[in-house]
């Protein structure tokens, strides 16, 4: 059952990155859209993510619940030493979620909308940035459980070039996912072209940010190269991701939305796979060579069995429902369009 739980944990993180990421990305794209087009982008986006945004964010909660039930030491260590970025991320989640629904459900449309929109857009950038910082800090090996002063314990645990670079990378990926997703969500040709060019820009930005991550790793003496290229799975995944990048650019010029989405999702999956595979089962690396491992720091047998069954049972209900939700809104849209 332990492995079932680990698979669920990894999958929820992946799905949060993909679905929640596209969702954050929509706000990022909106921020980087010229004033004249913002309104149209907003409407496309509302239609595209309105029905599913709540569900998209449930993956984060599932991941957290798995952590605190199944791997309490990992959850509590991260909560203690990454307290500050976690709080900022939470504030981002609160600001974004409420601003999104306020702007859609406010009975009066007036100047308040401008405020909701601002909050929504900025929070859409801040949240994934700090998610990236948190993820980067987990593996950067700077969490010092023996630190004696405030800065070492609670600030330098997460504030370093590597995690900041990962933060930017995450923001770029979210923007990229959203633009690819939105290409298929509009019937208007100019909008389509706009999203396609956004997809190109964000893709380039993601590649640049990715390169920065390597540089930062070098600066901070983090053996990222070895993690990725030191094993066949890492190499294969990275090669596949790069190959699919070529295909993706080709398709971007030809606008095949369905395959584009699959490819974008595939790339992000490969990135997550390479970065997690080599560590597994060590999910948090501590200063001085210590670590927290999914296998060694898992809860007791009964808990894992109960958690595993709860997750399996849950997915029997949830997965069909999620797919039906996405499918029916896609289908209805198609039938309205034609």
């Amino acid at each position, binding site marked *: 059952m332990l492995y079932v739980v680990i698979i669920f944990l990894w999958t929820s993180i992946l799905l949060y990155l993909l679905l929640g990421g596209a969702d954050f990305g929509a706000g990022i794209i909106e921020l980087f859209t010229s004033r004249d087009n913002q309104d149209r982008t907003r409407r496309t986006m509302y239609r595209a993510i309105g029905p599913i945004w709540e569900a998209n964010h*449930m993956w984060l909660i599932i991941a957290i619940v798995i952590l*605190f*039930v*199944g791997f309490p030491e990992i959850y509590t260590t991260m909560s203690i030493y990454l307290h500050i970025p976690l709080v900022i991320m939470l504030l981002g989640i609160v600001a974004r979620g409420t601003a999104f629904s*306020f702007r859609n459900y*406010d*009975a009066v449309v007036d100047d308040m909308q401008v405020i909701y929109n601002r909050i929504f857009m900025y929070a859409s950038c801040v949240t994934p940035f700090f998610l990236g910082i948190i993820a980067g800090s987990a593996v950067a090996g700077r969490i010092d459980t023996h630190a004696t002063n405030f800065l070492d314990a609670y600030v330098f645990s997460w504030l370093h070039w590597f995690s900041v670079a990962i933060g930017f990378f995450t923001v770029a990926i979210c923007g990229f996912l959203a633009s690819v997703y939105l290409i298929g969500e509009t019937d208007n040709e100019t909008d389509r072209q706009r999203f396609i060019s956004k997809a190109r820009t964000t893709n380039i930005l993601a590649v640049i940010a990715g390169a920065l991550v390597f540089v930062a790793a070098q600066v901070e003496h983090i053996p990222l190269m070895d993690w990725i290229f030191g094993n066949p799975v890492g190499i294969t995944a990275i090669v596949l991701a790069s190959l699919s990048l070529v295909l993706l650019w080709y398709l971007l010029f030809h606008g095949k939305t369905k395959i584009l989405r699959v490819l974008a999702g595939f790339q992000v999956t490969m990135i997550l796979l390479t970065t997690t595979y080599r560590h597994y089962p060590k999910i948090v690396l501590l200063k001085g060579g210590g670590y927290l491992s999914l296998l060694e720091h898992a809860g007791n047998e009964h*808990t894992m069995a109960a958690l595993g069954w*709860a997750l399996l049972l849950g997915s029997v209900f949830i997965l069909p*429902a999620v797919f039906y939700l996405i499918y029916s809104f896609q289908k209805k849209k198609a039938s309205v369009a034609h």
Partner: protein
Amino acid sequence: MNDFIAARSQMALSLGFHIVFSCIGMVMPFFMAVSHFIWLRTGNVMYKNVTRAWSKGVAIFFATGAVSGTVLSFELGLLWPEFMKHAGPIFGMPFSLEGTAFFIEAIALGFYLYGWDRFNKWFHWGTGVLVGVSGLVSGILVVAANAWMNSPAGFDYINGQYLNIHPIQAMFNDAWFSQALHMCIAAFAATGFAVAGVHALMILRGSHVQFHGKAFRIAAVFACVAALLQPLSGDISAKDVGRRQPAKLAAMEAHFKTEKRAPLIIGGIPDEKNKTVHFAIEIPGMLSFMAHDDFNAEVTGLDQIKPEDHPPVAVTHYAFQVMVGLGMLMLAISLLYFIAVWKKKQWLQKQWLLKLFVLATPAGFLAVEAGWTVTEVGRQPWIINGIMRTADAVTPMPGIVYSFYLFTAVYLSLAVIVTFMLYRQIRMVGKLYDLPAMPVPSSH
């Protein structure tokens, strides 16, 4: 304010905020489903308008409930890491099941809010009901987790170690049923009185009486049924507390001396130093009866409990008085309402009845907050009753005070904005919903 107090205050603030939205998220879907049902059955468009007006409000509340809940699931670790390290694997079962319930709720809500005129009308109605049912289930589950903190079960505590863990036994601890029952009824009473009160006010003002009248009726019936049941369920809770947490019961009743034929104390100012209560009304034997079904039974007082294990008496006592007092007020209003419905139809036209409902608008939510204060403050100094002290569970990170200020600012602003939006929603009723033959609003 030191960091420990700050952490407790931040937790209390976050939970006190979340509970308002979660009550509404659990209960409003049922109000909507009833109104929606009447519309589907009778074709009276006014009911459709009521349903749609409510559903807009619910969307706002739901999102706020969801984000504040997300904050909570992190806060447990951010503020109480030592607690979560040990408790997580034990009381985590309801949380893992709750994930499913939330998910279903979020999916069903997507269908419901965005599904107008898109799906088979009964399928669409059904998704609305499902929102309510899964909300209720998630409420029950999370309360079961809290009940475990009051009545730990499903493990052996040996030499500071938590051994032989059984998550299922932990979930079905002694307190889960009484607490979950009481909470569910409370959610209906609180939301019902709040909604009924707002619509009653609008009727009194003479604006869109048709619309508000229909909305009022639905909310009032739910509210009044719940208010009738609440004292019964409260009695079950009190007996339960007497059995498992005598210190909490003693603090609730400011019951300093162990005695037979213990009196029920109403009101009064507890004096912790001199161990008495000033200016209270006493009903002899009533506390013994409430706690043990026997007017002559002995009720444990605080004198039998080690001083370092005493909960704060004054806060717990006042909170309990407030809850019970408001419960009695709501009970009285419900009785009047039912008499009006069955025997004295002419009362329904009278202003005083509506005014009573307006008066009671915040009563349910105040009682909910007071009730949780009883439960949580009454458990102190324990975070896990009898096992772990709250002071030992708090995060080692200094500076929580600032985080508390920050969250206070955030929650205050959210409360202001939500109230403001609600106000605008209600003001727009005439424009959006009161036209008898409103065209079906397109969902863009």
